[in-house]
């Protein structure tokens, strides 16, 4: 299945792209997608414990299952205000 991954701020700088399509296997979770991505872009690994994740524009835990067409976002620590 195919999902869209969105990356923000420093994570976008590390990968060089704000949005990318990714192929994932059935049963994949947010964690699966992250590990796959961090394998391709080792600079992401430093964010393993500090980033947050979202699925279809809602915050989710890393064990959330993803489905075809989903939008997944990885968010570095926030700094609004």
């Amino acid at each position, binding site marked *: 299945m195919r999902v869209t991954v969105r990356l*923000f*701020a*420093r994570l976008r700088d590390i990968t060089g792209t704000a949005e990318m399509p990714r192929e994932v296997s059935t049963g994949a979770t947010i964690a699966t997608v992250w590990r796959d991505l961090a394998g391709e872009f080792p600079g992401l690994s430093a964010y393993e414990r500090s980033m947050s994740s979202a699925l279809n524009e809602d915050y989710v835990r890393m064990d959330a299952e993803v489905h075809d067409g989903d939008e997944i976002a990885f968010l*570095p*620590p926030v700094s*609004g*205000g």
Partner: protein
Amino acid sequence: MLAIGPAPLALEPLVSAVAADSDGVDGAIVTFLGLARNHNQGRRVRYLEYEAYTPLALKTFARIAVEARERWPGVRVALHHRTGRVNIGEASVAIVTASPHRGDAYSSCRYVIERVKQIAPVWKREYFEGGDVWIEGATADPDDATAREHAERIACA
């Protein structure tokens, strides 16, 4: 009353929006503007640039407003955050709270800005003399009860 985007911020429309909902019950409106300042951690800041995950930011603002109402019943919240370049002295965030009681209006206003800093998917990049850097604060976790309690404590200090 909840918005995020590149337009410059103004308090008056937020105050009017909150006041329009009042039906005469309000005893106080408190306003807050967060500004881009010219120094941070020993650096001379030239300007800031904000980026956001807009749809999630709006949902998060709505969540924060609900939290504020749970803690301070009767409070109403307006919240605008800016994206893109924000020059020194300009506002990056505007918050207005209204309540029958001034104490609740002050506390909820402080609570809202603390929660924005904790959980809103917004990032600032600081452009200073000599370089630029993404500022990274809190790991956003809306369900973290400890963070929420921390914001409530600050709000009531």
